[in-house]
């Protein structure tokens, strides 16, 4: 299984670091990609991850109304929604991509997000492109 997590520098990353420091366990199949802001993510990035065999992709972004860059997380939400529609149209299931809003000190929310995506893949099944690779 391969789950990609795009994490913003101001919430997702510190929450992930804190989760590590506190010894919180989450699946080793979760690979993290650091972004300066969740608004940096593009629909192309999300789709490319699936082409490269990811079973699920998630974003860990600042809480709404608390984005370090004011509205980057709102832009990210729109892109995730667009990616969901495309995945549904292509028959890959839009539930494979999700956005989670959390604060930098909410390590448990980060762990829960990672585990939620792993659960979803177990429920939906693997990405056929990942199986081929």
């Amino acid at each position, binding site marked *: 299984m391969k789950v990609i997590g795009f994490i913003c520098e101001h919430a997702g990353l510190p929450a992930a670091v804190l989760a590590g420091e506190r010894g919180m366990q989450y699946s080793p199949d979760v690979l993290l990609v650091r972004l300066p802001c969740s608004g940096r993510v593009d629909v192309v990035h999300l789709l490319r991850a699936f082409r490269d065999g990811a079973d699920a992709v998630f974003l860990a972004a600042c809480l709404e109304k608390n984005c370090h860059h004011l509205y980057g997380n709102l832009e990210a939400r729109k892109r995730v929604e667009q990616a969901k529609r495309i995945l549904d149209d292509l028959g*890959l299931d839009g539930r494979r991509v999700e956005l989670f809003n959390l604060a930098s000190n909410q390590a448990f929310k980060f762990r829960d997000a990672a585990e939620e995506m792993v659960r979803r893949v177990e429920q939906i099944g693997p990405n056929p492109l990942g199986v081929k690779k």
Partner: protein
Amino acid sequence: MIIGAQKPLKEICSMLEGHQNILVAGCRSCVAICLAGGEKEVGVLAESLRLHSDLHGKGWRIDEVTVERQCEKEWVRGVSEKVGDKDAVLSIACGVGAQTIQALYPQVRVMPGLNTSNMGAPEEQGVFQEKCGGCGDCVLHLTGGICPIVRCAKSLLNGPCGGSQNGKCEISPDVPCAWDEIYQSLKRLGRLDMLDEPLPPKNWLPSRSGGPRKIVNDQALFTIEEKALRGKRE
């Protein structure tokens, strides 16, 4: 500007069936402004098609290009290397752009990835409103700068009709009555007197009913001498 919206992804995928080398061609002009066919949209659509191809083993080779104005031969000629080895071009410019590519590259099948809708303007982020019907005989100077041809559901020249209620059109409470807007505009301008004179029946010959229209600007035409000096260009 010309307003359009992307066709459903499933429809685009089925159009492309049977092709292998596909170029997704966008335009940086009107359709980029209405967020339907610019460079960004080309990238997302191309990636979606690659994902579809990989999932279904189509083996599509998807390339991308975005030209400044797909309706102008000069810009479209500039991408001949990109089009050269393709067997299909998916144009997400307006219908004019798609036809320009087809005219210049008759050996390649051109398909529309966009439904071209109208001539309009952005009202706010993400909202695009039809403003001009291209009737060929503009009356905006008589109607307070508001087009009755396209903004009135009935294209009335002497409105409003009985369906105008509280400034809204009877077709939908979200649609303003153009003739109410015309009245308000003329009132602001202090020219309500213009409504005393009914507008005469309109000459529709310059509109679509006269067949495809062509405008020739004599001043811009090259003379035989100029053509000789500039060299032959198609």
